[in-house]
C-alpha cells in the first residue's frame, strides 16, 4: 500500500549503515523477517514498535552482539570492509570498541556498577590501547563532560548514581572514542519524565554538536519524535512502514502506525 519511493538521486553520499535482508529465528519464533535499513552519515534513525517487534534484536545486531540467520551488514568507513556478520570474534570486538557506541536501557548491561564512573569510560580507551593514566583521566573527563555528567562525581561508582546519571555514564563511555555510529536502546525508558527530558536534551545537543550518526530504539513515540530524522516502524519482526519523521507521525500510512500514533497521549 505504501508508495514505492525512488532511489536517492540528489544525495550522492552512501549510507553509513546498510543492513540488508536480515532474518533471525529463535526456534519457532521469528524475531526478524527480511529487515533492511540504511542510515546516512549524520542522520538519526528512530525505530519504534512494541516489545517483541524485533527492534532491539535489530539494534543488537548492529552492535554485532548477535548474528542473523541470513542477511548482511556493512559500515561505509575507510578501514571497514565486507559483511560485518562474517567477522570473527576478535575483529568484531575491535570494531565495536572503536567504531560503535551503545547505550542500553539497563545500565547493568553497559557498565561495571562498582567501578568508578571515570573508570567505566576509561575502559573503552584502554581497549583502544591508551596507556597513560593522566590521558585516560583527561579523556574520560571530557567524555563525561560532553554527556553533561557532574564532574564532582567523576569517580563515584554507577551503583551510587541515579538512573539518569547512569545513562550519562553509559553515554560518555559510548562516545569516548568518537564512534561513527551511536546506538541507543530505549535510553530513557524507566527514567522520570523530567530526567528523561534532560537526557534527551543532552543527546540532541550532542547530535547537533558532533553530527553523530545515531540509531535510537524506543517504544515511546515522543522520544522518537524528539530525536529522529527518519522513522522505521516495526511489528512482529517486520518493517511495516518507514519514512521521514514528520511524515510518519503526521501522515502514517499503515494501519498499525496509525494505531500507534493515535494511541499517543
Amino acid at each position, binding site marked *: 500500500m505504501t508508495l514505492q519511493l525512488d532511489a536517492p538521486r540528489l544525495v550522492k553520499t552512501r549510507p553509513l549503515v546498510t543492513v540488508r535482508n536480515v532474518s533471525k529465528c529463535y526456534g519457532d519464533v521469528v524475531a526478524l523477517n527480511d529487515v533492511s535499513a540504511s542510515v546516512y552519515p549524520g542522520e538519526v534513525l528512530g525505530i519504534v514498535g512494541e516489545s517483541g517487534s524485533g527492534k532491539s534484536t535489530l539494534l543488537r545486531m548492529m552492535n554485532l552482539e548477535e548474528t542473523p540467520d541470513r542477511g548482511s551488514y556493512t559500515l561505509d568507513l575507510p578501514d571497514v570492509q565486507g559483511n560485518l556478520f562474517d567477522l570473527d570474534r576478535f575483529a568484531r*570486538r575491535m570494531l565495536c570498541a572503536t567504531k560503535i557506541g551503545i547505550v542500553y536501557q539497563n545500565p547493568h548491561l553497559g557498565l561495571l556498577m562498582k567501578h568508578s564512573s571515570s573508570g567505566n569510560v576509561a575502559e573503552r580507551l584502554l*581497549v583502544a590501547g591508551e596507556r597513560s*593514566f593522566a590521558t585516560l583521566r583527561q579523556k574520560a573527563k571530557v567524555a563525561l563532560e560532553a554527556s553533561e555528567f557532574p564532574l564532582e562525581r567523576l569517580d563515584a561508582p554507577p551503583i551510587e548514581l541515579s538512573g539518569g546519571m547512569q545513562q550519562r555514564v553509559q553515554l560518555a563511555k559510548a562516545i569516548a572514542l568518537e564512534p561513527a555510529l551511536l546506538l541507543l536502546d530505549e535510553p530513557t525508558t524507566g527514567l522520570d519524565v523530567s530526567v528523561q527530558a534532560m537526557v534527551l536534551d543532552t543527546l540532541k545537543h550532542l547530535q547537533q554538536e558532533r553530527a553523530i550518526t545515531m540509531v535510537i530504539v524506543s517504544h515511546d513515540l515522543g522520544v522518537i519524535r524528539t530525536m529522529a530524522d527518519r522513522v522505521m516502524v516495526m511489528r512482529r519482526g517486520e518493517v511495516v512502514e518507514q519514512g521521514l519523521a514528520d511524515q510518519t507521525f503526521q501522515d502514517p500510512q499503515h494501519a498499525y502506525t496509525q494505531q500507534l500514533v493515535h494511541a499517543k497521549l
Partner: protein
Amino acid sequence: MSLSTLTKPWEAMNYGFLDASAKRELRRKMLKAVAVPGCQMPYASREVPMARGWGTGGLQVSLTLINPQTRVKVIDQGADDSVNAASIRRFLARVSGAPTTMDTLEADLIQSRHRVPEEIMREDQVLVLQVPNPEPLRPVQPNMSIARQMHADADYGRMWLQLYEQILRSGRVMQGASYPSLVNGRHVMTPSPIPRWDVPKLNMAKHLTILSAGREKRIHAVPPFTRVEPLVFDDVPYRVEDHGGLTCIRSGATGFFMNEIPQEDGTSAYEISDSEFGVKTIRAAEGEDIRFGDTWYKDGEMPQ
C-alpha cells in the same frame, strides 16, 4: 627368553614417584608452555603425597625434570629450612636419588614458593614456581571460559581498568604479589605470588621459569630471554617494595628483599628473605671463603 628378562624387576614405585605416562604428559605440556610463553596449558594434575595447595603443581614439574644428577634446591618464601621446603626437598631426593643443596649457585633445579633467589640464575638452571591461582583475569572475569577467550583475543582492558581503579582509590597500584605481567608482548600471566621485587628478575632472564598450579591444573612458562613486563601506565612507573635501604638484623646484608619482624616496642626489624644468602653473608663475615653469585639487585637498585 622369558618374561622376566623383558621386564624390569618389581619396584615399590616408579623412578621419581610419578608414572611414565604422567611424566610424558607433563613434558609435553611444559614444551607447549615454553612454545607459547605465558599461555596457560591445562594438564591432568596427578595425586602426590601432599595436599593440594601445598605445592603439588611445582612438585610434579620437579619430579618430571629430576634425574640422579640434578642438584635440587627448595625454598619457601625464600627460606630453605622451613618445614614445607625441607619436606619437599627430602621427598625429591628420596624418590630420585638426586643430591640437594641450599646454595643457589650449586643448584640445577630450584623449586620455589613465592620467591626468586637474589643471586642471578644461569642458563643451565631451571626455576619451578608453585602457583596457587594461575589466572590473572579471575578477579575481573569469574567465568573461566570467557577468561580463556579474553586471553585468546588479548582482551586485557579489564585488567588495566583494575589498575586504574587501584591508582584512583589509593594513589598507587596496590597489587603486592602476583603482579600481572605481559609475557613476550602477548599473554598476561600471573607470576605466582612473588613480590613486586622479584618480577623484574624474570624479564630477559637467562634461566627457564616454569610455573605450575597443581590444584588448578595449569602450567605456564617464561622461557629464557623472554620479555616479562609488569602492566603499568606510561606515567605511573612500576615500583618495587621499598626494601633497598633495609639491613638484615641477623646477617647485616643490605639492599635485598626483607621479611618484616614486628617488635614488641611497635617498631619493625628486618631479616633477609633469601635465607641462604643471609647464611652465606654471615659465614663470609666469620672469615669463611664463600663464593657469592652476582645479584640482580645492587645496593638495593636493579640496574637498567
